[in-house]
């Protein structure tokens, strides 16, 4: 009888052990903007595609993008998608949902204070939705622990942008993330794949600090208005190819060779610095 009881207790401890060993990411997390601050906070300049492994198509889309498109009714209340916002201005709260019987974590929930966004990372092994299911700004995420690193895979992401100056992402985007906690700091690493607008995955990282106080909220009770009187119903602001009046401004202002400012996978590697020195200085763009 004693022997049987010992076996039962030993088995119970063995089953319970993994949950007890799991890292916790629960809390309020605030970003540190020492990486890519100009892009993340004030926002990028028009025509700045540096560091992005983009396709020729993405470059054309961005050169055609007119910020006035955001004045269209249906664009006004859009929010940022999952891959973009974690590299943007955001604080988030993360909590766990547990099965009341097993105490296993079934989901991690996130509230992102920018635009009141909510995100779920499913931890219960469920499959991703079928290809015909709707897409959302945050996409559909599933996670698993790899040691102390939480690895998350996201699909069904809505089309928005990779950079806030018109460089688009497509609805075929997927993202792999690693959440790595070291004490009060958490490093977030994202690998953004997009067969439409990226020739290679875009890899970037951010650091967050665990906060003792709740972050402020950027509430978003958005309601569209007609901003431009008498604009035709069907108009979509864009620049025809070669007619963007701001083309070349960024490269000239910062003395960056035009080719480098236009981005592309080659420009993201250290070896490109050698080529960079051989490229001509930008000239003042013509007024269009």
């Amino acid at each position: 009888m004693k022997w049987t009881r010992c076996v039962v207790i030993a088995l119970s401890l063995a089953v319970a052990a993994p949950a007890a060993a799991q890292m916790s990411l629960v809390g309020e997390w605030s970003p540190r903007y020492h990486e890519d601050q100009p892009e993340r906070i004030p926002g990028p300049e028009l025509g700045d595609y540096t560091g992005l492994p983009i396709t020729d198509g993405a470059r054309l889309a961005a050169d055609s993008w007119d910020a006035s498109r955001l004045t269209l009714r249906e664009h006004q209340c859009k929010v940022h998608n999952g891959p973009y916002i974690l590299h943007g201005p955001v604080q988030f709260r993360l909590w766990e949902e547990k099965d009341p019987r097993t105490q296993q974590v079934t989901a991690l929930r996130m509230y992102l204070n920018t635009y009141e966004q909510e995100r779920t990372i499913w931890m219960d092994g469920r499959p991703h939705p079928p290809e015909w299911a709707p897409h959302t700004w945050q996409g559909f995420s599933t996670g698993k622990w790899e040691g102390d690193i939480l690895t998350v895979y996201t699909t069904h992401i809505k089309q928005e942008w990779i950079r806030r100056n018109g460089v688009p992402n497509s609805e075929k985007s997927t993202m792999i993330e690693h959440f790595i906690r070291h004490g009060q700091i958490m490093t977030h690493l994202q690998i953004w794949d997009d067969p439409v607008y990226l020739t290679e995955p875009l890899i970037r990282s951010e650091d967050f600090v665990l906060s003792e106080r709740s972050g402020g909220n950027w509430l978003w009770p958005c309601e569209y208005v007609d901003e431009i009187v008498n604009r035709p119903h069907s108009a979509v602001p864009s620049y025809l190819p070669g007619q963007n009046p701001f083309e070349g401004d960024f490269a000239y202002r910062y003395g960056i060779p035009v080719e480098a400012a236009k981005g592309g996978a080659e420009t993201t590697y250290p070896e490109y610095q050698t080529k960079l020195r051989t490229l001509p200085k930008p000239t003042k763009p013509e007024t269009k």
Partner: protein
Amino acid sequence: MKINVKVLVALAVAGSIGLASRVHTQQPQAPAEIHDFHVQGNVWLLVGAGGNIAVQTGDEGVLVVDTGLAQNAANLLVAIKKLSDKPIRWIINTHVHPDHTGGNEALSKAGRKTNGQPAEILSHENVLTRMSAPAAGRPTASWPTDTYFPEEKDIFFNGEAVMLYHEPNAHTDGDSIVFFRRSDVVVAGDTFVTTSYPFIDQTNGGSIQGELNALNRILDLAVPAHEQEGGTYVISGHGRVCDEADVLEYRDMVTIVRDRIQDMVKRGLTLEQVKAAKPTLDYDRQYGSTTGRVTTASFIEAVYKDLKNPQGKPRVR
């Protein structure tokens, strides 16, 4: 052994013709697997039968929007039966193409109106005109039995208003956009797809401006929920379920491409010059193709030809 070259050539040619004939007539393939997906309210999406199919269920029976390819009709009936054991009362055709109307006859006969007759097939009258043309070769039992000709038509079924909006000269000249008002689901037919550029079927009366009018109509009908997400859902003719934000990106794309080609037409570029200028470059990896019903080249050509001889006018809101 002496080989008669002329005979061999004749056999080869005959074989080629036979093969080409079989490909042209599209011998029925094995029935496809059909998947269901609950959109919201009373409306379901069925995928795999050809074009996308919407099914509305309720106490009064079943309403089906589009019927897929003919060879998938038996599997389609099984899939509908899984959603409801009530009879099919209504069939609505969004347009004439066989991948959306092929199952008309089988579904109509499998269903019944309250008077015991086969289920009604409702469409814009141009669908009936096209399907009943002798050259179409479509069986009489597959033709629409109930048509409308004004801009709008509505019925009330299963506790909700079902609105039909005719979009003149869009994907074809007989397109209906179907709006389930209580369920808050729009069925776009092929005026909106997520798998390719729009198919401007000019031989069946389609036009680029009509296509844009249809996309703008969908935007007018759709009301997004918080953060421009969800709210009204839109079932595309091919591809996935969308909301307003998705239709918006597609509308923007079609408009931008139209504007670029229009500028090239004004500058006197030939069709070959327009194609060489790659006016769809930024969207080709998503919607472009060199094979299938809608290729990048055929889309550019359709827009170019239409802008040289415009068929439609922008709708004034």
